[in-house]
């Protein structure tokens, strides 16, 4: 069995969703969908798991909080105690209200930048990267579903193509790998 990529081209996102449901009903795994705009409710239909980015964001935020506490303690209490506005400068806790804004800012800073960097790394996006788009029409008025035969050992490629055709794909392209 040759390795093959099948592209189902649709001109309507509702038709694409119903086609994806039919394919998933037969156990076909869909690699991705290329669309000119976000299709509401598509992710669970094509079997994309919910993102774990928010969990990562929580830990980046916690990292920022810890760094801010460490930084304020080292700078303002330990290394060079400073008397600002007559506030006692010998314990971190007694000065804590003054450090809350810094802690808040660093938490947000680390959570936001951590999320952006994680997103770029996971999706392998970097400056100068060539766009990976199987068909430029997916940036205009076409919706393209990508299925790879490597992912689908149990369902034959010809069967996938016939399901696509029966469920409203207006065009089917194949590419040998």
């Amino acid at each position, binding site marked *: 069995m040759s390795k093959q990529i099948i592209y189902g081209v649709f001109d309507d996102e509702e038709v694409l969703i119903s086609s994806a449901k039919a394919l998933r009903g037969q156990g076909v795994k869909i690699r991705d969908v290329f669309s000119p705009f976000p299709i*509401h*409710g598509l992710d669970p239909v094509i079997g994309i798991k919910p993102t774990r980015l*928010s969990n990562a964001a*929580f830990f980046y935020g916690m990292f920022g909080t810890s760094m801010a506490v460490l930084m304020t303690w080292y700078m303002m209490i330990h290394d060079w105690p400073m008397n600002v*506005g*007559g*506030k006692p400068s010998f314990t971190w806790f007694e000065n804590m*209200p*003054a450090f*809350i*804004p810094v802690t808040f800012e660093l938490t947000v800073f680390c959570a936001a930048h951590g999320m952006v960097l994680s997103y770029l790394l996971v999706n392998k996006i970097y400056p100068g990267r060539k766009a990976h788009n199987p068909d430029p029409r997916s940036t205009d008025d076409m919706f393209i579903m990508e299925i790879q035969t490597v992912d689908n050992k149990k369902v034959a490629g010809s069967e996938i193509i016939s399901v696509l055709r029966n469920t409203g794909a207006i065009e089917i392209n194949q590419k040998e790998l």
Partner: protein
Amino acid sequence: MNYTFTSKTKNICFILMGIGLLSLAGGFIADSHRAWPTLLHNAFFFMAIGLGALFFMAIQYAAEAGWSATVKRPMEAIASYLPYGAAIFGIVVIMSALHMNHIYHWADPAVTTEGSPVYDEIIAGKSAFLNPVFYIIRTVVYLAGWVLFYRSFMKRSEIERLSLDVKAWKKSQSLSAYFLVFFAVTSSTSAWDWIMSIDTHWFSTLYGWYTFAGFFVSALTVITLLVLHLKSKGLLPEVNENHIHDLGKFMFAFSVFWTYLWFSQFMLIWYSNIPEEVTYYMDRFENYKFLFIFNLFLNFFFPFLVLMKRASKRNYALLKVVGVVILIGHWSDNFVMITPGVLKDHWHLGWVEIGTMLGFLGLFGFVILSKLASRPVNNPTHIFYEESVHHHI
């Protein structure tokens, strides 16, 4: 579908009201200095929840929000406590301004009379604003204004219910715009008058917003709890978990907003450390330290950490637990706002305070559930009904 206000629920409300009346009467007989601020605290807390619900409903119109059309009846039901709450609160506050009790320091005529032994120069300087006549006029304007707006909203709501006309909705929208402008000013000034003036020497420009944040998050929590209660009865089937998720987000967001204002007010005063400003926090740190700090855990850390995850905002049982904690937290926050200025270190948190709270809870529950039962809980003639039914996030 109609909500049936069963006789069992009615009896629970009546028993709670009975407990409240007994506690309050007992409180007045035993120690009226303790009973007055309790009455003011509970009358304000529950009235403000009704006001917060009305404000949230007006926001939905002004923002042309579609998602909330299916939860509009619960909002209206909660707002329906406003006239009753305003009547009780108005009587309490006017009696206080006439110096029938010792809640307001400035209400004592001797304090502002030059040459008297208790003459207070600072309070005398504020008497152009804080005098009983002007104070009562302001109180009546706030309360009557809100109640009149509430009644116009209900009248318009009935017109909307009986017709599918877009014009009816448009009129409600312009009514909302007027209400929001009125509310923007009066929510701040009323908090200065009714609560901030208890600590007469002290002032904070943030106080109005701080009070508003507290009662708004309480109102959002009560809306969520009422919607969850109706859902558990099988009513409101068109409200799906996305609506509940959105309400949970509001609870989360406005808990953070309350904390932001709480901290902003505290930190500036703590940092500058000016005697006339820190008195407010001195009273609270000396005599109310545990409650004062514990409120932050109830109102910030608990809802913040528990409601952070998406899944927990869709977990009905967890939302109910967080909702009850938030309401207890803000009730206790209002207690720490009102009581220290009146009773200083002679305070109690016992059967009078909790009994009165239960009494008001009974009345509040009775009013909003009666209102809910008087009309179908669904709202199919709302122009955004279809949009709301298909709400998905």
